[in-house]
């Protein structure tokens, strides 16, 4: 990885990498917190990120109290950015983020390329990483068979249909029942395709319950849980797929094969935070989230560099992306004022039922506020109490929350109070999902 260090590059107080919902929200929050010298670098020709192709509604209910489509939500933030006169460079791809070693007041060098300016480097006082995520591809799946045309990631198909006006195909099988797969099942059907089935490896769908209703049930599209595509057929163009049932270890069951004739296979099999730049800067990463390790300010292991939105961990609702990004923007502003120094680090550990937490650490100072910990369970659990304990699995309970049901597809939160953080001697907090019992043991 090239490290571009240019001590005479122009200084910019805040550089935001990515002009999607996270980047734009971070920019607005940083501005409102007093930052004026900043730039948002967006590689596409228009800001708005993935929202531009998400033409369905369901966005903004929390943030704006209205149900908006993706482009409308993006436009709200774009207007806020324009009203404040914040500089957004579109068509500018960031190639590199390099830490500024010991250079006072500079967090990193950010190098980008655009048709308008060629290659340029900025000395950034602070950086917010908001690059979003990409889709897991067929190559990652090892499906046996040929390599014909007609296999797309669901998001690629979404771009073709909603922005370019092309139909990827007419007879469709979808692998993956996350929201993107469900939304595309409906979209393709409405545009005249026959969606024969949505296959899901797991015994439950990862998408929102409302999408099962409005994308599958409404059109009589079968959801085949515990099924996956085990073979691809077709020479130049896809002619069909073989689908098999899987057992509790997710292994295909011989003899369960079903053949679907189709010309299109859409893959909705996971989102991967796009962290090439983050890794290139040597920033500490979380192997589970695929994003950076951060504290409650969303500050990474590189001081003055913050991460937020899908590049940090994949979110379910864009409203929470904007909320997290605003937090990062405010933190970047605080960093620029020299306020984010010192404190001791408390690490969050989890039991096997909590798949991950964001933040992974909490920086405790005299000015610490309550911390909202975001997490996902590793499976569906019912009648549970989410618990935060001091020190370890037997530690004193600092906070707890009862839930009737938690599921991997729905990000949850639990709050740790500032007073508890400041009073605890422990340097670890243990976040766990426990069975709700009638008798409380360790209160």
């Amino acid at each position: 990885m090239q490290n571009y260090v240019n001590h005479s590059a122009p200084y910019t107080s805040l550089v935001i990498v990515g002009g999607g919902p996270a980047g734009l929200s971070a920019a607005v929050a940083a501005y409102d917190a007093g930052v004026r010298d900043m730039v948002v670098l967006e590689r596409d020709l228009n800001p708005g990120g993935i929202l531009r192709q998400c033409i369905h509604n369901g966005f903004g209910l929390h943030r704006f109290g209205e149900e908006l489509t993706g482009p409308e939500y993006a436009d709200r933030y774009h207007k806020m950015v324009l009203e404040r006169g914040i500089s957004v460079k579109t068509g500018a791809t960031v190639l590199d983020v390099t830490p500024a070693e010991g250079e006072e007041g500079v967090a990193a060098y950010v190098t980008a390329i655009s048709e308008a300016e060629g290659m340029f480097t900025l000395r950034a006082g602070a950086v917010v990483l908001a690059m979003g995520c990409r889709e897991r591809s067929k190559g990652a799946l090892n499906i046996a068979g040929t390599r014909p045309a007609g296999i797309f990631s669901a998001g690629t198909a979404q771009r073709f249909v909603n922005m370019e006006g092309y139909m990827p195909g007419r007879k469709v099988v979808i692998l993956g029942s996350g929201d993107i797969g469900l939304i595309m099942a409906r979209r393709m059907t409405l545009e005249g395709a026959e969606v024969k089935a949505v296959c899901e490896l797991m015994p439950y769908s990862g998408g929102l319950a409302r999408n099962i209703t409005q994308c599958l049930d409404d059109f009589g599209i079968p959801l085949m849980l515990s099924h996956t595509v085990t073979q691809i057929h077709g020479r130049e163009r896809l002619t069909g797929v073989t689908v098999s049932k899987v057992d509790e270890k997710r292994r295909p069951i011989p003899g369960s094969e079903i053949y679907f004739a189709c010309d299109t296979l859409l893959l909705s099999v996971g989102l991967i935070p796009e962290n090439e730049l983050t890794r290139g800067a040597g920033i500490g990463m979380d192997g589970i989230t695929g994003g950076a390790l951060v504290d409650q300010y969303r500050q990474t292991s590189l001081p003055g560099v913050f991460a937020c939105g899908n590049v940090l961990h994949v979110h379910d609702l864009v409203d929470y992306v904007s909320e997290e990004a605003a937090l990062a923007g405010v933190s970047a502003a605080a960093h620029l004022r020299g306020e984010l120094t010192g404190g001791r680090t408390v690490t969050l550990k989890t039991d096997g039922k909590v798949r991950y937490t964001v933040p992974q650490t909490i920086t405790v100072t005299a000015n610490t506020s309550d911390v909202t910990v975001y997490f996902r369970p590793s499976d569906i659990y019912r009648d549970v109490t989410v618990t935060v304990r001091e020190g370890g699995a037997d530690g004193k309970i600092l906070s707890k929350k009862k839930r009737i049901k938690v599921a991997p597809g729905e990000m949850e939160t639990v709050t740790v109070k500032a007073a508890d953080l400041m009073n605890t001697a422990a340097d670890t907090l243990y976040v766990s999902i426990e069975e709700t019992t009638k008798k409380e043991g360790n209160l």
Partner: protein
Amino acid sequence: MATAYTTKNLTCIVCPRGCTLTVTLDPTAESPVVSVEGQGCKRGVDYATAECTHPTRVLTTTAPTVDGGVVPCKTNRAIPRELLFEAMAVINTLSAPAKVEIGDVLLENLLGTGADVVATAKRG
């Protein structure tokens, strides 16, 4: 006289929460919905009632533009669910202007439903 009530489970689609609604129905009554349980807010009750009598949906799609592209659009209110494919056929014959602002009406009173088709993205 005991009426044979039936119950139906629905997922509310009004917001991403997707509350599970249990609807008690009296099949003999003119307004069959007797009660709704499980809603997180009042809109869930309205949804359950509509869903059990005349289901409606907001349609989000794209409309062809005069310069060969597409512009995202939606119906500005929910339309009868059974009209979705007919609505798609009508919207796919439109020729929206090349320059469009969010909220611009691309088609008034779609299929006599009283819903307009409005642009949801700025273009040009």
